[in-house]
């Protein structure tokens, strides 16, 4: 036995016992704190391990994800580049060009934001897109040109970064204006211009795949937000006519399922406009989805306005701000900041709801998968229903990445703005 040096108990405390620190201590505190918790951990752990074992062995050994390769580019852009949608031409470059615009804008946003989360998003998105160029199997008609255009997203990002860094374009205002302009340009590009070589028109009926979901979601989010604010302010205003109109609008749109509205937009809305009024089915769907989302958005923002202390508006009025400035500069920014989670939740709901356009016959990524899967099954190209599960798991994962990404960003924005702290 060696001589144990006596610790100086008068000045330093004893270290906690080994069983209270480190991994053992953590497990004692979080998994085995009582007999009840120990039993719970053992039972739940066993069930979870069993499920994980069978799930993983199915996923890694039995599951056959080749159906995704079979559908390939259809999942991304639907029938846009098929003989039906774009006969005799390769139209894949158009959605790809839009991706390049997005990468450039992300590069500019990176400079403007000066790092942080924006930088990470700006780098991640183009890199992931560029990685698609190395897929072993061909996306729909995927030749070297398609792969090169995918790779070009990296130089596009750098171009955007350089534009933001070394020219006068590096401000939020220009990025915002360019984004709106870019979105409109994207729509024109996808639709095509009659008579222009290489820009042969593609009917909106053939827009599809993930592209359609993203287009509807972006348009819906951007447009429904201001409409929602207007509706919320209208519902809180003390002008009886305006208030009544807003209440009726909000309650009617919130009371009926989106799918019913979408379906009726195909049957009824054409009747409500003169014949040959320029409203195609995609536009009708986009308008309905936007208005539906705006009604929910209005209620979220109204909640934020109601939660605001009336002293804020009173102080603003006391300082001499006119009514609309009180609203725009004092009430609304605080109200919106307080309900960011609800607003982003509504954006997520809108993105998920874009899968409902199946009811009007549009082939978004979900409906396209279902339809083509059953067609392939009927034609004997797939064994009966065997690969459909894999397909829908893949779709769930695709949607999950986008929606979880959105809620992650929302959490970051919340923390950045100090929600609940100020």
């Amino acid at each position, binding site marked *: 036995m060696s001589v144990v040096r006596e610790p100086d108990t008068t000045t330093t405390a004893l270290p906690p016992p080994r069983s209270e620190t480190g991994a053992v201590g953590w497990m004692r505190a979080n998994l085995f704190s009582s007999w009840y918790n120990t039993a719970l951990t053992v039972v739940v752990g066993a069930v979870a391990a069993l499920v994980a074992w069978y799930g993983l062995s199915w996923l890694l050994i039995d599951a056959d994800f080749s159906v995704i390769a079979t559908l390939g580019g259809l999942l991304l852009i639907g029938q846009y580049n098929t003989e039906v949608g774009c006969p005799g031409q390769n139209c894949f470059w158009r959605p790809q060009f839009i991706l390049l615009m997005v990468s450039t804008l992300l590069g500019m946003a990176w400079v403007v934001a000066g790092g942080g989360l924006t930088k990470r998003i700006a780098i991640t998105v183009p890199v992931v897109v560029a990685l698609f160029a190395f897929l072993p199997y061909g996306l729909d008609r995927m030749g070297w040109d398609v792969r090169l255009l995918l790779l070009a997203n990296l130089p596009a990002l750098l171009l955007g970064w350089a534009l933001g860094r070394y020219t006068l374009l590096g401000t939020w205002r220009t990025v915002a204006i360019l984004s709106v302009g870019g979105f409109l340009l994207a729509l024109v590009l996808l639709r095509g211009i009659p008579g222009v070589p290489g820009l042969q028109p593609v009917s909106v009926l053939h827009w599809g795949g993930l592209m359609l979901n993203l287009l509807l979601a972006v348009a819906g989010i951007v447009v429904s937000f201001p409409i929602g604010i207007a509706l919320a302010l209208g519902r809180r205003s003390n002008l009886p006519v305006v208030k009544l*109109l807003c209440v009726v609008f909000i309650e*009617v749109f919130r*009371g009926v*399922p989106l799918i019913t509205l979408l*379906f009726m937009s195909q049957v*009824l809305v054409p009747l409500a406009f*003169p014949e040959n009024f320029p409203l195609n089915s995609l536009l009708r769907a986009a308008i309905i989805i936007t208005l539906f989302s705006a009604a929910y958005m209005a209620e979220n923002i109204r909640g934020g306005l109601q939660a605001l202390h009336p002293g804020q508006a009173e102080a603003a009025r006391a300082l001499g701000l006119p009514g609309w400035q009180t609203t725009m500069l004092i009430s609304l920014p605080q109200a919106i900041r307080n309900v960011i989670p609800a607003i982003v939740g509504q954006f997520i709901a809108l993105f998920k709801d874009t899968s409902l356009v*199946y009811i009007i016959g549009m082939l978004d990524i979900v409906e396209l998968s279902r339809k083509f899967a059953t067609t392939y099954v009927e034609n004997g190209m797939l064994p009966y229903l065997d690969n459909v599960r894999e397909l829908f798991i893949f779709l769930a994962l695709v949607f*999950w990445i986008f929606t979880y990404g959105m809620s992650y960003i929302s959490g970051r924005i919340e923390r950045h703005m100090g929600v609940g702290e100020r």
Partner: protein
Amino acid sequence: MLNTNTTLPRALTYQGIPIWRHAQVIQWTAQIASGFLVVFLVAWFFFNIANAIEDREIPYGFSFLERAYQTPIGQHFLPYETSDTFLYAFGVAAVNTIVVSIVGVILATALGIFVGVARLSGNWLVAKLALGYIEFFRNVPLLIQLYFWFYIVLALPPVREGYVIADLVYVNNAGISIPFPFSDGLAAALVWLAAALAGVVGGKALHQRLTEREIDTGQASYPLVWGVTVAVVVGALAWLLISFVGGGAPLVVSEPAPQGTFGRISGGFTMSGGLLALLIGLVMYTSSFIAEIVRAGIQSVNRGQIEAARALGLSPMGTLRQVTFPQALRVIIPPLISQFLNLTKNSSLAGAIGFADLTNVAKTMTQTAPAISIFILIMAAYLAMSLTYSLIGNLYNRRLRIASR
């Protein structure tokens, strides 16, 4: 102020203020303008619809409701024949939606509360599993989940090779068949149900009365024993009486059994693949939202309340049941009601997996009936449902608020 008065003609001022700067004038102009705009738009739509009806000879009106619908409805909870009228078929579809909503709401609430409480568990493993459940099912579109469950049911073995559990439950690609109470005479069953309900209500009232007496006088009054006894005795007496008078039990349990050469399951209650997938999908999707609401509600309760309850010697479970949860309910109920409404509206996705809900049947009806009238009917039906939910929510809210201090 005098200056503005002298430089402007009197007609352009109101109460001495230029009219384009007078708040009231601006407000009223805005109201009248927006009112006119909306009236104009609505009138224009009506004009166009009226034109379309006339020019393109589009049918309208509600006379079709008396006609026979002549289209089969997949699974239905009310008896239905193809010779029944449109009106009745619409009612059958509405009942389908209502039944799915009620069952879905009950199951989703139970599962949601369970997951929400698990999310706050001190057990790391349980909390993380609950978090994973919530984050996954909340973030994947319901439609994808419905398809997934639907194709799982479809991929089950066919009827003759299906799974049989204890000769009572049959699981195959036509759905799940379970034993279910049925009655030959609907009247007898309804009378018995009413009597049994009365027994339960009476027993509950007695229980409350005896509890109060026990608290007031301190004498042991056995409220639970008496309450349960009254409920059971009333139900049993009614059962015997109806069996004696009506010549048969009011309800008999019908068990599913394979029949014929094809082994089709008859008897019991068969949940079709569409209904099954719809219920599983709706319940899992909605419960993930409810779990988050429950978590937020529980977290909103002041920590001091929980500490006080523990200091008084309540067990963790007792604290949750008698202190935390009743207070959390006040925060939970309003968003919970809106989730119920969401579930009801989301059940309209049933059409995608072949279950005949209100929207799906209405969609089929537009092929043989005027779309405008169908649209009005379906709007009215869904608005009635959402108003019912708001009414229940408001009533409940009011009760909670009076109870609060």
